[in-house]
């Protein structure tokens, strides 16, 4: 085709803008910003050495070479020469915002929503923005077989969980469900399992119960079952509306998750997956995505003893959809890009490693049509870097969520979140406080 789609689209957008501006008149114009001169790494399309990113309101209106993207006259032109534009980072597994899930009363608590616990003003959320993270899956811990419903957040600049929540099409807040097996969830007291066999039995019993609950719901009629918050959440899991985010380390625990998935047909993402390299063929055959973690050493507990940096490469070889996560505070959100560096060091391709901190995570959270790459029509979620994303020396200069700047290294307050210092452990907007020395 003579006129590529990439070229055509901005023209259409411009035409649309023209129509709107003719017709409106007194409406506030949607801001248009053109980031010009950067090296652009869109992730899902080839790198552009000297590019233009055109953002209209919340949305990416054009991405292309300088000279090929038409910059409207009323656009604010921002010179980003020498810098790198990269999609906002997506973290599939984070514990920022003082997130909490189930309590010690039972090992399986699908009724618990972590969204009811999150402090979006916590400094950890600010630090995640400083690290370039624009979307995260906030989860409760791994001390339960099932510790609660997770919350997908866009790290917009807001005061409430409602401001930050990713929304489903029906307007409800999006999230998955957190499950775990292996050491952390085996406690042997307070109704918690003492063995792996018991762990699986407890989980199966709940899903069987949810299956009958679902059948009763489907029958409808005069005698519908009473509302049961736990069963409602598990029915969403059975129907694939709520993804299972499953903490698992050891090869046999990984296989147990695959077995349960086969029995109940839920959608699952394997998390951490320390021993993925031992059962990579089985994971690939089950077509289950993996969100893996990079740690600077193995161990810390028996089931992470055999964690290998080659997990990323082994999964890539077999075509497994692979993302990385911070597990913040295990890895601070500000070091997230290091994971991609370690993955490449240990044999993963640059392309797949960059996908693993952006688009792959978005796919696992069913948000890839909205975010995760610099693509026309997607939300303008991006970071401005001062160097290559794989280099340890690279810093995040700015983070933008849906067209709005939520982190700017030049802002002294933001710099505190980026580097630490006196007061960096506090929540923001503390009055009468320090933040200076």
């Amino acid at each position: 085709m003579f006129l590529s789609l990439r070229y055509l689209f901005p023209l259409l957008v411009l035409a649309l803008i023209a129509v709107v501006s003719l017709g409106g008149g007194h409406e506030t114009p949607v801001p248009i910003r053109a980031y010009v001169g950067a090296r652009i790494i869109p992730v899902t399309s080839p790198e552009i050495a000297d590019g233009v990113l055109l953002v209209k309101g919340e949305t990416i209106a054009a991405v292309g070479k300088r000279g090929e993207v038409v910059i409207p006259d009323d656009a604010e032109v921002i010179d980003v020469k020498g810098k790198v534009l990269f999609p906002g980072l997506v973290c599939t597994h984070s514990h920022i915002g003082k997130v909490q899930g189930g309590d010690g009363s039972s090992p399986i608590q699908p009724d618990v929503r972590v969204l009811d616990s999150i402090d979006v003003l916590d400094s950890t959320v600010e630090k995640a923005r400083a690290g370039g993270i624009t979307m995260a899956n906030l989860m409760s811990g791994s001390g339960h077989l099932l510790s609660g419903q997770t919350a997908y957040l866009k790290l917009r600049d807001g005061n409430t969980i409602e401001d930050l929540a990713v929304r489903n099409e029906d307007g409800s807040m999006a999230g998955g469900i957190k499950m775990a097996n292996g050491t952390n969830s085996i406690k042997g007291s307070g109704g918690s399992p003492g063995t792996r066999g018991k762990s699986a039995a407890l989980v199966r019993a709940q899903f069987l119960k949810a299956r009958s609950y679902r059948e009763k719901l489907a029958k409808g009629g005069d005698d519908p079952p009473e509302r049961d918050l736990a069963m409602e959440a598990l029915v969403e899991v059975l129907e694939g509306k709520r993804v299972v985010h499953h903490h698992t380390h050891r090869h046999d625990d990984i296989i147990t998750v695959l077995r349960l998935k086969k029995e109940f047909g839920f959608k699952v993402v394997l998390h951490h997956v320390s021993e993925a390299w031992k059962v990579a063929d089985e994971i690939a055959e089950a077509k289950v995505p993996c969100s893996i973690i990079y740690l600077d050493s193995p161990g810390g507990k028996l089931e992470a003893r055999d964690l290998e940096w080659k997990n990323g490469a082994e999964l890539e070889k077999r075509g497994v959809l692979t993302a990385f996560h911070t597990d913040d505070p295990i890895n601070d959100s500000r070091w997230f890009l290091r994971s991609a560096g370690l993955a490449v060091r240990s044999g993963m391709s640059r392309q797949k490693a960059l996908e693993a901190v952006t688009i792959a995570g978005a796919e696992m959270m069913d948000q890839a049509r909205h975010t995760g790459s610099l693509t026309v029509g997607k939300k303008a979620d991006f970071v401005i870097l001062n160097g290559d994303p794989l280099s340890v020396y690279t810093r995040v200069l700015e983070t933008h969520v849906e067209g709005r700047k939520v982190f700017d290294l030049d802002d002294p307050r933001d710099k505190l979140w980026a580097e630490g210092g006196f007061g960096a452990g506090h929540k923001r907007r503390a009055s009468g406080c320090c933040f200076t020395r």
Partner: protein
Amino acid sequence: MKISPLLTILLPLTVATAGAQMAVQAELLYPMTGDLKPIEDGVVLCSKDGKIEKVGPAGAVPIPEGYQVLKAKVATPGFIDAHSTVGLSGILNLDRHDQEQLEKSAPIQPELRAIDAYNGRDPLVKWIRQLGITTIHTGHAPGALVAGQTMILKTNVPTITDPEKNTLRPFSMVASTLGPDGFGGGGKAPGSRAKSLAMLRENLLKAQSHLKKRKKAKEDETPDPDLRMDALADVLEKKVPLLITARRHHDIAAALRLQKEFGFRLVLDGASEAYLLLEEIRDAGVPVLVHPTMARPYGENENMTFTLAAKLHAAGIPFAFQSGYEGYVPKTRVVHFEAALAVTYGLPWEQALAGCTSAAAELLGIADQVGSLRAGLDADFALFDGDPLETTTHCIGVVIDGTVVSELRK
């Protein structure tokens, strides 16, 4: 140890002749001496007994025939982790099995020796060795008012059978912790900062009298043996420094006050808020083992900054990098990964490399043995296929005392 076939392929000039003398040749050789600048196409010749004989550009230092030549893009001295708990705090993290770094039965136990606790066969020792770390200052961890002793040894010692032979320093420092991390817990003393200092002062005063008795005693009538007081007396005699882990500014100030009162050699550890007291630390002439750049910013560390090493450097305070102690995952940090991020946050690159080689050796008092590439020092090297501090670079070979101990790990 034999040269693996893999290394032979990577280093095509390698001649794996047993007993051959070794030479290292690198496109960029960092001797870490003088202005810290590298030698382009540098060569190091080693002696048969594992010492460095000659260092210089290839043009000036020809490699004699029959030498086993290790080639790399970049070569540095073997890295030094200036404060670790590796070998005591094992990979499995199982109490009573492989966690030997902390004993909380009493608040002050300087008599606990690191040499009695070290397991050189723990996988984490191998882990850091294959990444380029050849020397560690390891031992009792922060977490008690006086936790015990530390020592310095190479990462190729599987079992300590002869402390004098197997270590650089069998007794390097006495480790102490101020602030809540050093409290007794469960109602046990100390339970406050003031009590911590009162207890330390009381014990150091006792050690002063013990020392007087020890000095007075004639050969045939030594004072009653007292392991605890002997160790503290060594501190007062400046045989070993007191390593004080102090994170908050007022804990750092308390450490400086204590040092002034008793005149021991002080090494500050962690020192998250040291940026508030730069002048005081510099004037006291106290070096700092800076917390890992990636230490977690919680609790006593909540005010830490990634720029601390840069600030210490700018203030002229000697410092070195450390992996520190980790209670969960990762079970150990990797010292040059921490140094790398200090560069990202303002420290000149050569200073970061020095912080885990030459400057670390100076701080630990072992610069006449390791930490730089000079004639007479141990032939310890780390070889790389690129910038040694960059995440994507591989360590393609590690040499200790002239012997290859590790080849490329993928």
